[in-house]
């Protein structure tokens, strides 16, 4: 745009007094051209930088998983031997299996309970509900170390009654406790989207309360339940701090195993192989999820046409 054009447009519009100085600065003729080329490049570099920061460790782990040398300081050629060794060492093997066991149990218990609790909370009056939600959020906002220690102290008080309580029972209870709020927070919004009369309508039409819940409410809030379940599973499988304080009797999960092995020779490279497999599985999951999403969108627009 020429100076003249810009002047006449300014005359149309109160002389552009509304423009901020920053905008003016970036839109002076020569700066504007510079911006057009520079900004997109800056954006791409920035995004690349951030993803590098996030993914560099993941990549390093993947590289180490095929590194012939067990020492991450040097690269000794490619190998897949670590992948075959994942279940070779008893301590690692039991750590992995115990982690999965706790995660699956937590998934089921937490999801079921969390959904029921969310339904209960949703049925409360507004003021009570708000207060309850604050209470629900406390474990979420609490520092993990405080939650871990709190639970440890709580279980310690029970030691006289249940002398061998530490281990699977305590870790499971702990995991359920700290994942419940996530499930509740995933399900609640879906509940508030529901028509308030759905449940009453179902009961009115003859359903027993349980049937009404399972046939009417649950299917409607299913996405929230799934999201909550996934959250619970993810949080449980990788948990460190809380598990660290609520375990005992040699019951380990993966994070504890790693923490106790860092810097020592007991850190088998097989763990890198395990981690890489998990990453690859998760990536595959993402790809499937995206393709599924795209497929649904395209199917949707086809029907519209």
């Amino acid at each position, binding site marked *: *745009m020429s100076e003249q*054009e810009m002047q*006449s*447009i*300014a005359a*149309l*519009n*109160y002389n*552009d*007094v*509304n*423009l901020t100085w920053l905008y003016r600065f970036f839109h002076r003729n020569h700066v504007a051209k510079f911006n057009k080329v520079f900004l997109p490049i800056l954006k791409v570099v920035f995004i690349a930088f951030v993803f590098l920061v996030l993914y560099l460790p993941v990549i390093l782990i993947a590289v180490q998983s095929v590194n012939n040398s067990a020492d991450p300081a040097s690269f000794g050629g490619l190998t897949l031997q670590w992948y075959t060794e994942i279940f070779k060492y008893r301590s690692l093997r039991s750590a992995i299996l115990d982690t999965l066991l706790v995660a699956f149990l937590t998934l089921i218990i937490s999801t079921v309970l969390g959904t029921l609790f969310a339904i209960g909370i949703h049925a409360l009056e507004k003021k009570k509900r708000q207060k309850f939600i604050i209470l629900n959020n406390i474990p979420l906002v609490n520092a993990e170390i405080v939650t871990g220690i709190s639970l440890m102290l709580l279980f310690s008080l029970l030691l006289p009654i249940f002398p061998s309580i530490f281990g699977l029972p305590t870790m499971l209870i702990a995991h359920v406790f700290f994942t419940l709020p996530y499930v509740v927070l995933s399900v609640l919004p879906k509940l508030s989207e529901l028509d308030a009369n759905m449940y009453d309508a179902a009961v009115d039409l003859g359903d027993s309360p349980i049937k009404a819940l399972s046939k009417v409410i649950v299917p409607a809030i299913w996405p929230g339940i799934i999201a909550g379940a996934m959250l619970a599973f993810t949080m449980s499988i990788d948990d460190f701090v809380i598990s660290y304080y609520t375990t005992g009797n040699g019951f380990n999960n993966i994070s504890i195993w790693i923490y106790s092995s860092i810097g020592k020779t007991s850190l088998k490279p097989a763990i890198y192989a395990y981690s890489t497999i998990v990453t690859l599985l998760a990536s595959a999951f993402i790809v499937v999820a995206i393709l599924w999403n795209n497929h649904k969108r395209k199917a949707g627009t086809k029907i519209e046409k």
Partner: protein
Amino acid sequence: MAKKLIELVHVVKKYDGEAAVNNINLYINENEFITLLGPSGCGKTTTLRMIGGFETPDSGDIILDGVKINDVPPFRRPINTVFQRYALFPHLDVFGNVAYGLKNYHMKDPELTQKVTEALHMVNLDGFEKRKVDSLSGGQQQRVAIARATVIRPRILLLDEPLAALDLKLRQSMQYELKEMQKKLGITFIYVTHDQEEALTMSDTVVVMNKGVIQQIGHPRDIYNEPKNRFVCNFIGQSNIFDGVVLGDHKVKFCGATFEYQEEGFEKDEAVDVVIRPEDFDVVPSKTAPLTAKVLSVVFKGVHFEMVVDLGGKIVTVHDYEESKVGDTIGLHIDPYEIHLMKLSHEQAQTL
């Protein structure tokens, strides 16, 4: 003294290869209330957004006061918009919303508060300054949006189907209010709607659009009485269209009968579309009538009865103040000035 304010010249806008707006040419005068009317997807909203600056034409020019403004961003155009869903700022109260534009132009108190109060008074929302936006009804939000857009005195106000979400009575009263507002402010209003009654009620000029092309421009009366083609004819009001042949000497033959008509511009033996509005039929005793028809259904519409009749095999709609019974044979009469002829479109002419 109509002065051209804004002009669209050969404007084209494409989405995904398809033209949403296809070579439209239009000019709008100062102090005019003009409506872009058409079904969804006809390009009226796209046109409005291009005038507002939210979209850029792929080709063609938009000229304001002799200055080409194609690439000028919205915040540099003296044009403001009332959005379809109001787009009120949720984090500001009513005062904050209305004052938003004024603050951008560095207006300070006491002038600021005075202008806001005036604007709220004009839309009948005195005392609403401190109210939260989400506590307002649809009609009230509507009016805040109008106050917000007009308080900074733009040269042109764009309204994107602003009354669509309101109930009938409210819509009708707002139509009058908007018309009054336009006269009082002296600003050009460009209004977009798919509701033809709305367009006919409020506008000085109506622009009928379909599929990205302007079908007809004119005064509401002309659009209604003299539609230029089938689309406009069917879109505005109800109508019946017959195949007819001009016999010369202001006579036209259709439905097996000959009628006199008054319009100019048609030649002997020309095939034409004959348009008769339902309310233009006069129901008369069948014995002496030029046309007779059998009544198929009768519905009471409050103001009139709407009847669907069989006129020699063709289904026709007739409005009458008197009730006829289903199964009756009625006579139909038409006055010459109520017979409207339309030239056939290219496609129709091919098939003859």
